[in-house]
């Protein structure tokens, strides 16, 4: 006899809430239109982009415990897929995003297949190497601008959007919502339970019947696809892309730092981390200097790893337990 457990119902309600919040944010953003300074849209875009990247990283890094150092590689692949498609036949951004997701997802699957059989650091080193190899290839590929970089012309925008920045930020809210929904679905499903078992003790997980390689590959593919999608709209955001920007170290570092600061065990940790770290970085960029960014990441990481190793999620949980 099937009866939905209270837990299953609570999970479902949570998913609907996430979707609703995303929808409301999209509508509100459309309504605000050009009533705020465009700078805020640009700042919000960066933060949202990191919500996607942090969430994507966490699916493999947080849930399964496999640290990916190559987020920038997956992000840049999405970015350059977009550039190639734009140069070939001025494809719509939506199509770029689908192609970027497919390519970066396959890249996650391939890297995973080659390295996830091995445990621990091998995967991390391979992802780092992957990003470097890709950057070298792109730097020497003149069709996408090579090392000089390439300009991307933003298409005309119409309808409910007041500017291209307005359109991009709305798009990114949608993508961030999708990414969070995917992470939430993975976490609460049998995949998430299996990944948690793998993270806790991979050998014991296998003994309990968990097909670890298969689950890790699902996680690597999903994670890579989301990172690629986040990259697809980046050329239109900056309108000039060179390898140094697309493969920037800060992308990889931030994508690890944000989930660690927010908390890696749940879907909302990376969201909180990205909003906190992203906002502070944006503020610092305007008030002090953009060079202070990475310094700040370092300081915050040290503070959190020593004082609150489970991130904001851990602090909230501890205070809840304390109240009981």
């Amino acid at each position, binding site marked *: 006899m099937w009866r939905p457990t209270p837990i299953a119902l609570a999970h479902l309600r949570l998913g609907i809430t996430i979707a609703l919040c995303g929808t409301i944010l999209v509508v509100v953003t459309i309504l605000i239109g050009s009533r705020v300074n465009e700078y805020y849209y640009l700042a919000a875009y960066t933060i949202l982009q990191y919500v996607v990247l942090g969430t994507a990283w966490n699916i493999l890094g947080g849930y399964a415990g496999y640290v990916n150092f190559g987020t920038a590689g997956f992000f840049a692949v999405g970015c350059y897929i977009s550039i190639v498609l734009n140069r070939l036949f001025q494809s719509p951004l939506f199509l770029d995003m689908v192609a970027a997701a497919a390519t970066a997802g396959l890249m996650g699957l391939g890297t995973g297949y080659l390295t996830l059989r091995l445990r621990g650091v091998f995967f991390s080193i391979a992802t780092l190497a992957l990003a470097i190899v890709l950057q070298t290839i792109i730097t020497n590929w003149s069709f996408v601008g090579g090392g000089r970089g390439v300009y991307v012309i933003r298409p005309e925008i119409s309808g409910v959007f007041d500017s291209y920045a307005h359109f991009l930020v709305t798009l990114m809210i949608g993508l961030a919502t999708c990414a969070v929904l995917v992470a939430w679905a993975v976490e609460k499903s049998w995949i998430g339970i299996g990944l*948690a078992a793998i993270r806790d003790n991979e*050998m014991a*997980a296998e003994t309990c*019947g968990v097909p670890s390689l298969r689950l890790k590959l699902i996680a690597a593919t999903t994670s890579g696809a989301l990172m690629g999608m986040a990259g697809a709209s980046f050329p239109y955001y900056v309108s000039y892309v060179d390898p140094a920007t697309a493969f920037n170290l800060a992308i990889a570092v931030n994508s690890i730092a944000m989930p660690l600061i927010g908390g890696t065990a749940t879907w909302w940790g990376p969201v909180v981390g990205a909003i906190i770290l992203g906002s502070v970085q944006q503020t610092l960029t305007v008030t002090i200097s953009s060079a202070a960014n990475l310094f700040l990441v370092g300081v915050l990481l040290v503070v959190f790893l020593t004082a609150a190793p489970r991130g904001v999620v851990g602090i909230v949980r501890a205070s809840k337990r304390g109240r009981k």
Partner: protein
Amino acid sequence: MSATILAVAGVSKQFDGFAALTDVDLAVCKGERVGLIGPNGSGKSTLVNCFTGIVRPDSGSITFDGADITRTPAWLRAQRGLVRTYQIPRPFPSMTLQENIEVPLRFAAGHTLASMISDEAQVILDQVGLIDKAGLSPKGLTQVELRKLELGRAVAARPKMLIADEAMAGLADSEVDEILALLLRLNGQGISIILIEHIMRAVLMFAQRIVVLVAGCKIADGLSDDVMRQDEVERAYLGE
């Protein structure tokens, strides 16, 4: 005698030139209780690792429940009912005891309904005497409780055969009896059990048959009393 459930033929394994197992043959019948003994380093754990897919043998074949599983991955063997516990308990520390039990129920036993999984986990926790701690983390458990959790997780995989790798090492006499009683109960439900153990009292009480491994070779295999009377076994295992 009833049908064979596990059959091992000519299994050998070398680690960097060191012969951990040499040409081991072994057959276990359905519902049988076998004790596997041998001095430290005699290859018991390697043999179990070959059974359960943690280690691939260099040669030989392993048949379980009518199918050749020599090249089958570990998780699939668990799903088919060949389940083990680890000598050093390997709990999932980020989960509660209840959730620990739910992992094999979901993945090895193949249950899909959350409500059913949760109910069955309760039954198993009750069976191994950990029901009071269902909502706790394994971090605070004592050694004997960890062993019970390890056994509970194995039971949750709905095994046809259970291999208990030194499930009693380091436990007090009364605790050994507790674990033994639990294993006998499981055997009563039709599960074949291989017990690897140094505590001879436990092995002699539990096993119908004893297999002795010395330096990677099987030197004796037979009814407990007969095996223990063999000179060779006495020399190799119990000392001169």
